[in-house]
């Protein structure tokens, strides 16, 4: 496998409703920024990979068909990737593999969601005949498992609020973030409405329109490069007897494979920044454990000690993360792109000083799809 690097990243100004652009225009806002960042032209792009979450979200079957012109894919291979909420991460990994394998020299990965075209809560709660209609969107799905985590880890109740306050404060430093709440506090999060007990309003990701794009290349195209040191993806069924919904096996397996491939033996001391898919605040400690940053039941202690703040031992979601912007299909690629920005030193006000190794992480479905990568400033 030959080395490959992220050489340019771009994203939209995420917002609840980007009524000024079409889906094509939204994608191009991110693509044009990524290509300018990489210093490349359309003639430099060999293939395009598009990621998008369920088609019911926009009511457009196979949007890759009508977007081919806008994605600059005419006359080139165009692949659509779909792994539910993790799709942005999977899109980055598929694009990386096309370069690492030697099939293509430069690949454009783009992912988007235009949530304002419909209502994801509705789309995720379509009542199936013969069943009990108790489903209540993603929050309704994940809230019982968050409760299980709190019980199993004996975690104090304020941890979720601490994560939410941190991520929203970080988002205020990110010019592209949907939510910017520099003055949010643990107390104000705790005072917000309980939506899906134990998940509060302020502990929940927003619904966003947005897109993200990255250019992945075998060789640097400008002065910057985030070298892809490892990629991993794993899957498991939504439900089976004995399934651990709090600490899914697929996530553990993906993380183990990732660290091994990256040559990392002690993730907590060797990773300088992590962009982890945290759509509901409690998933920060849950994924810290699942990823092997801490032992089981100890993730919340890292959060409580402030070690996941910018300046802490492992800054988590310096960009503000999914809790600050959630264009679902793009959210995973945003994690991957923000990790690349950290090691390229281009993250601006949310830059982690001296970051040389960073994690991008995404999960999707009922915590059943996992995609992650490690990027570094050094060529492997």
């Amino acid at each position, binding site marked *: 496998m030959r080395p490959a690097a992220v050489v340019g990243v771009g994203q939209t100004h995420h917002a609840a409703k980007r*009524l000024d652009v079409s889906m094509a225009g939204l994608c191009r806002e991110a693509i044009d920024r990524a290509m300018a960042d990489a210093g490349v032209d359309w003639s430099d792009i060999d293939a395009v990979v598009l990621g998008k979450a369920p088609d019911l979200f926009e009511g457009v079957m196979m949007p890759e068909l009508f977007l081919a012109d806008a994605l600059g894919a005419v006359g080139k291979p165009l692949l659509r990737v779909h792994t539910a909420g993790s799709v942005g991460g999977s899109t980055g990994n598929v694009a990386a593999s096309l370069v690492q394998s030697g099939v293509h020299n430069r690949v454009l990965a783009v992912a988007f969601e235009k949530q304002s075209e419909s209502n994801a809560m509705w789309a995720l709660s379509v009542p199936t005949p013969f069943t009990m209609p108790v489903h209540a969107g993603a929050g309704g799905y994940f809230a019982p498992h968050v409760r299980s985590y709190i019980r199993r880890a004996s975690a104090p109740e304020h941890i979720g609020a601490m994560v939410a306050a941190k991520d929203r404060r970080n988002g205020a430093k990110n010019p592209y973030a949907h939510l910017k709440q520099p003055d949010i506090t643990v107390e104000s999060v705790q005072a917000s409405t309980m939506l899906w007990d134990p998940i509060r309003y302020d502990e929940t990701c927003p619904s966003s329109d947005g897109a993200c794009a990255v250019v992945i290349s075998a060789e640097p195209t400008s002065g910057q490069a985030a070298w892809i040191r490892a990629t991993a993806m794993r899957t498991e069924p939504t439900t089976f007897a004995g399934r651990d919904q709090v600490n899914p096996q697929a996530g553990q397996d993906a993380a183990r494979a990732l660290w091994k491939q990256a040559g990392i033996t002690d993730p907590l001391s060797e990773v300088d920044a992590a962009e982890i898919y945290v759509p509901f605040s409690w998933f920060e400690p849950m994924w810290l454990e699942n990823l092997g940053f801490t032992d089981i039941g100890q993730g919340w202690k890292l959060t409580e000690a402030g070690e996941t703040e910018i300046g802490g031992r492992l800054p988590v979601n310096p960009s503000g993360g999914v809790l600050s912007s959630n264009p679902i299909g793009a959210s995973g690629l945003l994690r991957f792109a923000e990790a690349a920005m950290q090691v390229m030193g281009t993250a601006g006000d949310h830059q982690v000083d001296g970051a040389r190794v960073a994690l991008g992480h995404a999960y999707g479905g009922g915590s059943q799809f996992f995609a992650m990568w490690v990027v570094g400033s050094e060529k492997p």
Partner: protein
Amino acid sequence: MTRPLSAPLDVGFDYTRSLGPTLGRFLSDLRRRKVTGIRGSDGRVHVPPLEYDPVTAERLSEFVDVTATGVVRGWSWIPEPLEGQPLDRPFAWALIQLDGADTSLLHAVDAGSPDQMSTGTRVRARWRDERVGAITDIECFEISDEPADPPVEAEAVTMVTTPVNLHYTHSASPTEDPFLRGLMEGRLIAQRCPVCEKVYFPPRPACPVDGVPTTDQIELSDRGTITTYCVVNVPFLGQRIPPPYVSAYVLLDGADIPFLHLLLGVAPEDVRMGMRVEAVWKPREEWGPTMQNIDHFRPSGEPDAPFDSYSQHL
């Protein structure tokens, strides 16, 4: 073998499209009884206008007025129109090259009979009286050599609403079928994996872990344990149960996997993981092939189950 049970599943949503500058101009002009194309880098005029050039991928911006008259370049007769199609009587789907355009637009032609249609037939737009800024502002095309109605003034549009309605017939699997028929008799039928001996309720055609058919049918009681739960306080479109309600994972006694159901008869703040519950069935005359025969679960009054008895089901 009898046919598995089936039921209608209708999925519908009025999607709201933000148009952006190019499609916004096209649909605003349709509202004005004008058709606008856009010139590509190779000089071709695309109708409908493309946002990005198919050759260079650059954004296009040179709008070109074309007429609402043109020629049929290809067609297909629709003898029995379907729901949502432009006309409720037989019509032709046609690729129509408008005068001044280099590409063809797909639309309906109200031709009356396929005998009237041929490649090369001249047509003109029949404009709707009430125009909203949508492709359906052209009600259809009609066979004519005459010009279409002239443009008028109208406000620009930036959004269009696109209703999408899907009508499915949802069929139960052969494994689900006896389970659902059991529910009609007030029985809870599960399946056991012959390899790992895990008991699935609702049953599965195959064990997700071992990949073998679940052949052993067993009947469970309607008592169980709440493994975990959430309190749904948020209202949303399409919701069937008014919030707040407790959505709980119920592990029936003898089962190895919990399922989501409704918990009532206890204040949400008093629900506990490990709480013992029993089913409250609807009146028998309301029973059908559905888990909704169990109206809800309620606390049984038994002592809570110890954490270790259900911790492997979280």
